[in-house]
């Protein structure tokens, strides 16, 4: 029996039983709708987490242990020699040393700030990064041009987000976009601290120029070119040879534990608090997605039971017709095939409707969120990310649920005694 004929016969039966079809398909659609909805929600939230904690699963930050014996003996250090050794650790693809600005610095801004008069002074926390790490995020050159020239800085994208969503609305300050800020210059006083209330003897005025926003930039402070920080540290007599940390990028995420172990054997420590937090939140989102997915699976399971009942009823009702099919030459297998083909159509219809329902619900929810929820940092324009495999899985599960549900009814239909079936009134 050819599939096209099978489905033609199945369709003719289904058209007659649109009501039953709607009930079975509807149940499947509900389950699949939930499944696809939750999967897309999980993926969407995972995306938000990645935005809030832009850490790569391939990267770890190496620091000097704070309480190490070696440290007391002056052994554990992060100088160029150690960085060179770190680069040779098996599994390491790249190493990017970072150095903190080891002298105090403040910025004072008095004047117009996008149409508003402001006066503020801030301690500047500076970190030096290798330009390679910032890469394309810098729209203007991220290079130290020596004494007297403005120092280019990149700022955390998260900082901009928090400014725009929390700080600016509270103070009535304008919201800022990347392009408004790039190129913006403001003064900095090196060697001076408001908090400590002191000024170093050779304190000096300089300028900072914002050249970009980057996930690589430090969250609290300004990220400068590494060479600029080294230059300033050296000039003020601070340590300019030992790095504060080294970002290690593994060849792949699986190698991270191995790399971390090698690093620890070198007497160094891994600062993975940020990475762990991201992984933990990611895992939590995954867990919740899984739980909701299982719930959706249960609903789909109920739909399968519902489909089973509907098909039992349908087979019972069509007993005589099944006898007729056998009389014109259908085998038991053919009869089962017809019932299963009907189930397949029911399941596919349910799957497609379910996917559409999920998309509809997601669109509604996004609209409610965008209109009803206050703006908060990292508020996404959509909480959902529908991926091809969500849809494929949804339709596959729908098909499977309907076929599993119809399995026993199909078998019952196949086992009908044709002579008895034909005498059924």
């Amino acid at each position, binding site marked *: 029996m050819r599939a096209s004929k099978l489905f033609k016969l199945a369709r003719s*039966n289904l058209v007659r039983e649109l009501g039953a079809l709607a009930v079975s398909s509807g149940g499947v659609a509900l389950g699949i709708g939930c499944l696809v909805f939750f999967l897309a929600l999980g993926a969407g939230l995972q995306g938000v987490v990645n935005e809030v904690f832009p850490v790569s699963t391939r990267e770890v930050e190496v620091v000097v242990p704070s309480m190490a014996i070696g440290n007391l003996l002056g052994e554990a250090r992060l100088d160029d020699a150690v960085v060179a050794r770190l680069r040779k650790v098996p599994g390491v693809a790249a190493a990017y040393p970072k150095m903190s600005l080891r002298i105090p610095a403040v910025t004072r801004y008095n004047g117009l700030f996008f149409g508003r008069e402001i006066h503020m002074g801030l301690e500047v926390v500076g970190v030096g990064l290798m330009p390679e790490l910032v890469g394309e995020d810098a729209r203007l050159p991220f290079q130290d041009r020596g004494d007297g020239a403005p120092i280019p800085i990149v700022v955390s994208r998260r900082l901009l987000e928090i400014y725009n969503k929390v700080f600016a609305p509270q103070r009535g300050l304008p919201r800022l976009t990347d392009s408004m800020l790039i190129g913006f210059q403001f003064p900095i006083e090196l060697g001076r601290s408001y908090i400590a209330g002191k000024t170093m003897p050779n304190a000096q005025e300089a300028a900072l120029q914002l050249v970009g926003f980057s996930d690589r930039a430090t969250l609290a402070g300004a990220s400068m070119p590494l060479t600029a920080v080294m230059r300033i540290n050296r000039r003020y007599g601070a340590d300019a040879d030992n790095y504060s940390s080294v970002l290690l990028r593994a060849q792949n995420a699986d190698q991270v534990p191995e790399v971390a172990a090698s690093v620890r054997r070198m007497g160094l420590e891994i600062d993975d608090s940020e990475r762990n937090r991201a992984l933990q939140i990611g895992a939590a989102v995954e867990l919740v997605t899984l739980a909701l997915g299982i719930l959706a699976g249960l609903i789909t399971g109920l739909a399968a039971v519902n489909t089973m009942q509907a098909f039992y009823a349908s087979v019972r009702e069509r007993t005589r017709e099944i006898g007729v099919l*056998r009389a*014109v030459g259908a085998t038991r297998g053919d009869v089962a095939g017809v019932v299963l083909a009907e189930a397949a159509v029911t399941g596919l219809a349910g799957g497609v409707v379910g996917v559409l329902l999920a998309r509809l619900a997601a669109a509604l929810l996004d609209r409610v969120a965008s209109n009803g929820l206050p703006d908060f940092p990292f508020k996404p324009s959509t909480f959902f990310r529908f991926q091809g495999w969500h849809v494929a899985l949804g339709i596959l599960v729908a098909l499977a649920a309907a076929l599993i549900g119809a399995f026993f009814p199909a078998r019952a239909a196949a086992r009908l005694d044709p002579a008895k079936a034909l005498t059924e009134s």
Partner: protein
Amino acid sequence: MSEPAIRLAGVGKRYPPREPGVAPLDLLIELDLTVARGEFLAIEGQSGSGKSTLLHLLGGLDRDFIGEVRVLGCDLSALSDQELAALRHAQIGFVFQSFNLLPGLSALENVLLPDFFGEGVPDAERRAREALARVGLADKGQSPPAALSGGERQRVAIARALLARPPLLLADEPTGNLDAQTGEGVISLFRELHQEGMTLLIVTHEARVSHAADRVMVLREGRLAAEPGSKHPLESE
């Protein structure tokens, strides 16, 4: 000459008691019957005498019997379910009292029903139209069964039975649900098929059907007997 179309030898059918304490029902007892190829046999019998049961045995739809049933050279007891299905598909046409058309299919699709199964039917579409034309319903192919009269439905059912051009037609009270005039049309159709060489076995309790047959037998109390006065081609030699 080749084997007869149908040969029954010592065929019995017993239904187990429906409730405990009641005697089992011996519906068919020690039946012997030979139907020659090309013969038109009518079997009369009152309601409940076992006519439908006998047809189901002959069509391999009911395998629970004793004795030997040979149809078109095949010993039905020796065939598998699959082989029986293939036999029904290619060699046997069934016509029922209540037509048994599938309500979800058009008249033409109902005629095409055998083509859905087995190896299909060669040139099915053309044959189906021919079969519909043959029963006088060339223009009703697209009609659903619900839009047809009883006589038309039975003619669609006959066209369906003819699609695979089987040598044997088994009909179970084909005129039982038809009025006299439409019944007459169906009977003359059977007569034509007979003239073309088809073997027909029709069970009925209507004398007008029997009149068209070569031979008439009566099923009574589980046994088959030649109807008194009926000609018997095998015995007349």
